[in-house]
């Protein structure tokens, strides 16, 4: 999955602030009513039995198990990393999660526990969650996390710059952070770009931010930090899924999507999977292209999984608190 830093198709678009603004404001407006109706309609699909079992396992493999608290300790991160590798110790057939998502200073701890298990370490960088810091500090934050061994970087965009229309500034920030994700051996950590859609005010802005981030070379576009309400919602994710679908049609490059925050139940997760399948097709039904940023979701997935294998309802007493 190596994408050029900027998609050549859009070289002209990103040359000046005004050309970029012209392009982003020229994107078709989002039909708010239609979008919400479509998202609500897809959420009514009923997924049962073997399809449900398959969806639950897929959802577990897509979880970025997250702890982003001021009170995080090394012990907590180690416990979380162990859980990511073996979510249900009682059942060896239960798949591992995609990644653990931590603050940059916890990357080394997480990496040490995860070893070569295949579970990635994602680090939030660039003055998460507000993004209010000088550019060189954001870049240093990113480099630190990559040096410590992060496989994925979750950056936040400067919403202030975005909302006041300084799109080229946001574009260049993303491009520079992406450059800072490079490792000495020539590989690069994957970059997820967080929009904080709860602060973007309109669906049109979500669409613009999606295109901006994709043109700047983000590997993933992510809804929220989880620190602002509303976090991930179905309509917002639908707009982002449409954007990555259209971007592939235009450029041939695939970009992943990660809704984060507020997805707590298996039922919610399956609604998202249905939407991915109906909007983008099953190319995106893969942990490389779709993720859930979540902490409490995993336990509910495990409880549902246990219900399906044992035939009786499970309870939170049988899973770790995290």
């Amino acid at each position, binding site marked *: 999955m190596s994408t050029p830093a900027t998609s050549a198709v859009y070289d002209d678009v990103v040359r000046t602030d005004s050309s970029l603004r012209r392009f982003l404001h020229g994107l078709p407006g989002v039909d708010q009513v239609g979008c919400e109706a479509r998202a609500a309609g897809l959420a009514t699909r009923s997924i049962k039995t073997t399809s449900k079992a398959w969806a639950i396992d897929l959802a577990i493999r897509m979880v970025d198990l997250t702890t982003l608290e001021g009170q995080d300790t090394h012990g907590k991160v180690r416990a979380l990393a162990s859980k990511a590798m073996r979510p249900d110790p009682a059942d060896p057939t239960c798949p591992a999660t995609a990644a653990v998502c931590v603050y940059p200073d916890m990357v080394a701890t997480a990496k040490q526990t995860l070893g070569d298990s295949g579970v990635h370490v994602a680090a939030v960088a660039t003055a998460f969650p507000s993004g209010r810091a000088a550019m060189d500090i954001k870049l240093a934050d990113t480099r630190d996390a990559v040096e410590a061994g992060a496989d994925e970087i979750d950056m936040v965009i400067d919403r202030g710059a975005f909302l006041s229309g300084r799109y080229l500034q946001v574009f260049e920030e993303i491009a520079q952070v992406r450059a800072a994700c490079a490792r000495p051996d020539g590989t690069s950590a994957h970059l997820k770009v967080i929009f904080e859609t709860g602060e973007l005010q309109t669906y049109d802005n979500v669409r613009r931010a999606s295109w901006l981030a994709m043109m700047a070379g983000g590997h993933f576009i992510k809804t929220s930090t989880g620190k602002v309400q509303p976090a991930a919602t179905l309509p917002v994710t639908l707009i982002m899924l449409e954007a990555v679908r259209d971007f592939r049609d235009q450029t041939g490059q695939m970009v992943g999507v990660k809704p984060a925050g507020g997805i707590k139940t298996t039922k919610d997760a399956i609604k998202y999977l249905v939407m991915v399948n109906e909007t983008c097709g099953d190319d995106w039904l893969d942990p490389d292209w779709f993720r859930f940023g979540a902490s409490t979701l995993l336990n509910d997935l495990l409880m549902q999984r246990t219900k399906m294998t044992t*035939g*009786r*309802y*499970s*309870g*939170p*007493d*049988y899973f770790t608190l995290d």
Partner: protein
Amino acid sequence: MSRIDVRKTYKLYIGGQFPRSESGRSYVVNDAKGRLLANAAQASRKDARDAVVAARSAFPGWSGKTAYNRAQVVYRVAEVLEGRREQFEAELRAAEGISPARARTYVDAAIDRLVWYAGWADKITQVVGNANPVAGPFFNLSTPEPSGVIAVIAPRGPLLGLVSVVAPLIVTGNTVVVVASEDNPLTAITLGEVMATSDLPGGVVNVLTGSQAEIAPWLASHMDVNGIDLTGVDDAALAVDLEVAAADNLKRVRRPAPDTDWLVQPDLDRMTRFLETKTVWHPIGV
């Protein structure tokens, strides 16, 4: 011009709300003479699941209240029931075909039972707790704690029977999911209305109506239910199945007693059956 009837739709009582069954089903409830009385919601296993979730989330708040406060709330249920006694007397007469005097006896007994159990809330600890003599410099104290979420298969007595099985569980701090009597479910939902308006937090008592044989096995095998009271199960084979299913997570089980005379003054057993004992060692003189 004649007035249009305002008929009541009997629904479930889950988490302080009165939802219909998620399955959309209902069943016919007849009065003592076999005439149509009303339709009741026929709860499914998913309603039972939702009720357990509601009971579990209500548990920390309810068990964390002071015993004195729980007593006040249960007493308040008795107060509100007293204020609506005519409605309950009328419902009992319609459902069971009993005389006005008999109906009044049952309602009186149900109110008195609530008051009696309310009084126990802040006394049960003194009676079943202990200061244990130990060979060391410690205070050693055993105190009762509520078991957690208790599923109750309610007996046929639509008001007194129900109150007699639910009140002893909630005064000690448990939260409950009740499967109301299949033949006489309507009074249980009306009692739900009383509980919803008497400071009892939503989810402390949840009432399901429908088929005992359909719902009870899901509650018996549910890993997040800590105890099951089979009082109202009158099918012996079903009772055995339920007890076997309950063994998986070592639920406390109370065996069936469908023919109990609920007018008889109870002992403490219904309260103490669903309690756990916590023992603490506290150093002396440090």
